[in-house]
């Protein structure tokens, strides 16, 4: 106990603590302003210069935070998927129902769309609105192809393999996980269509390309999630 008190007194004595001089009549309107009456006192301390902070824009921080929350969301469903692998009471199993050929193609499309969206961003950065719209449209098309392919695959799963969300655990977890991802792709496509509409009205320029940057970050994220989902569902879990 004595030690604590001694340490406190030490702290008091150190330069971390100071007693205030008795207050005088000074004008405390703003830091650094000295009134006439104080001319004989020591000059008021001046703060160090402020260096501008390099930081992301609020929009970027916001989107990043949102994407982290999406990681938590998908993470929960991926963990659930893995946890339930092999626990089915009835078939079909992933090995029986899933086939790689179509999904490899749609995956390639989605990955390519990350490339096209990046190119769209770069083109816009150089001021080429027409080129931007072309690459942007390509991204949308590739996204739609991915969704169409998913729909095709699901039709096959439902009608040929009789795999539905209520069939067994695999159906439950598969449709939930892949479905949530497809929902995110759909959301991204819708937003990109809106941006395309704005671009057609010449409202997307180099000056306001921040929004395009944010959408492309989202799109890359959706791609990244797919890489994980694809690996877990179609490669590791099959």
């Amino acid at each position, binding site marked *: 106990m004595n030690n604590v008190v001694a340490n*406190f007194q030490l702290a*008091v004595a150190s*330069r*971390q603590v*100071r007693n*205030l*001089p008795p207050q005088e009549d*000074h004008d*405390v309107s*703003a*830091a*650094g*302003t000295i009134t006439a009456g104080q001319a004989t*006192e020591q000059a*008021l*301390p001046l*703060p*160090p210069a*402020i260096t*501008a*902070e390099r*930081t*992301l*824009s*609020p*929009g*970027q*921080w*916001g989107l*990043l*935070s*949102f994407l*982290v*929350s*999406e990681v*938590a*969301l998908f*993470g*929960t*469903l991926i963990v*659930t998927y893995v*946890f*339930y692998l092999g*626990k*089915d*009471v*009835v078939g079909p199993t992933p090995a029986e129902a899933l086939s790689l050929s179509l999904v490899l193609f749609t995956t390639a499309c989605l990955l390519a769309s990350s490339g096209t969206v990046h190119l769209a961003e770069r083109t816009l950065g150089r001021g080429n609105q027409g080129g931007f719209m072309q690459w942007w449209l390509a991204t949308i098309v590739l996204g739609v192809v991915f969704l169409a392919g998913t729909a095709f695959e699901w039709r096959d799963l439902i009608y040929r393999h009789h795999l*539905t*969300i*209520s069939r*067994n*655990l695999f159906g*439950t*977890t598969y449709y*939930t996980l892949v479905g949530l991802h497809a929902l995110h792709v759909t959301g991204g496509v819708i937003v990109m269509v809106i941006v395309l509409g704005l671009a057609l009205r010449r409202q997307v320029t180099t000056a306001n390309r921040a929004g395009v940057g944010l959408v492309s970050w989202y799109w890359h994220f959706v791609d990244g999630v797919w890489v994980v989902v694809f690996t877990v569902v179609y490669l590791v879990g099959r």
Partner: protein
Amino acid sequence: MAIVEEPREIAHEPAAPPWTAVLHEWVTTVDHKKIGIMYVLMAVVFLVIGGCEALLIRWQLLRPRYDFLGPDTFNQMFTMHGTTMVFFMGMPILIGFGNYLVPLMIGARDMAFPRLNALGFWVSLFGGLLVYLSFATGGAPAIGWFAYAPLTERTFARSAATDFWALGLAVSGVGTLAAAVNFMATILGMRAPGMALRKVPFFVWTILWTSVLIIFAIPPLTAGLAMVLLDRNLGAHFFDVQNGGSALLWQHIFWFFGHPEVYILILPVFGMVSEIIPVFARKVLFGYEFMAAATAAIAFISLGVWAHHMFAVGMSRTADLFFVVSTGIISIPTGIKFFNWLATMYGGRISFASPMLFCIGFLSMFLIGGLTGIMLSAAPWNFQLTDSYFVIGHFHFVLIGGTLFGVMAGIHYWYPKVTGRMLSERLARWQFWLFYIGFMLTFGPMHISGMLGMPRRIYTYDADRGWAFWNQLTTVGAIIQGSSFVIFMYNLFTSLRAGRPAGDDPWDAWTLEWSTASPPPSYNFEVIPTVHSRRPLWDLKHPDDPDWQYE
């Protein structure tokens, strides 16, 4: 052409806007201050509703084998009481404080995304209404606020009430997430010049980490709720044990959310208390850097303690031990904060206006709640104490003794800023003492009845269990607490007109919000200030001895 003279209008004072215009302004506002006030008002309304649910519970438990409420109604009451207090009172009130104060404290004009802010509020409110709409199905859900599977499956919870509950929570979760995203973007991207991240007011720091927790913890809950809805409505098998589903999976998912949730409910309060105690002790917060590090540590560790809510489920001893260790570790940064608050008071010049009274109530009660938490972390002892009234005592000590007392401190501290009027100190003292005494009388005895074997969530008990006396004490305490809330609401609303005008800075405080008018103009600051330290107003008031020399 005849010239027709129009009668001249006599110039007069603009009439007070019609109530329709005022309502329209509030409903369509994107101003963080108004949205913050609406969050707080929403929380106060749900506080009253949840409090009534609690009083009904306490009345039923007054006597053994009492038939005031039947089992179904009782079970609905504790489900809704817990859900309401956690989701529609606790989180909204803290988000409300954050919304109001963060832009002011960092020298910004609004949050980063004002429209998202408004959306978040209305969605949160809508979620709350959805959950309460469940009463229209013939009764609220009777599943408990943590809704263990498979009790939530269609087989066992037949009515649509559970669907309303799950949907309402998922929807309000979207609102909560929106608020968190907004806080992150605002705090990380919109601070005033000179306000480095390590110089933000402590409340802002805690809101930052609360938002981090929300971002990590709410989505798993949303996923779990979606699974419940899918099971119930589309025949999914997530928690369908007969088809390979796992009841434990729900518990893991829920508590992975649920534990960070309670830190979401306490970190902003740590922040508020860290603003108020220094002002009323007239001393800078002791050990800001360590407090800040402790906050971050608590946030990280809180993601790794969840299964201490599940010690009795039959996990392996190694798994149990892991959570014993992680839970024990989290008590260390929490203790550090506590000691720093005491060190702030030590050597100060403490005055006991109502905000400080509530802070002292907070300190004394949160200590007890934290210590019973340590007791609960000793896993074998937990086997006896878990799911008993001891746990109810513990978490009310941290949630009411901690969160609610801290919120009361915050309300009494910032009310002058928000309204331009002081609350009545006399009424505040009455409220404080009735609240303090009533609270201890309510929840203290629960530790005893828990240790005497009384489990949670029972609508009645036999006379020969020996629990009646403790339950009666609790019920009396609850009524005393209830009276304190009546005084509080009266003070809150009458001081709007009758309170003493507050001025800009009634407490002689040091953070930026006190440099604005009370209430602040819609644009917050005429000129965005440049700051050099954690206490910009201290620097202004003590230009010969500014903080930045010592930070």
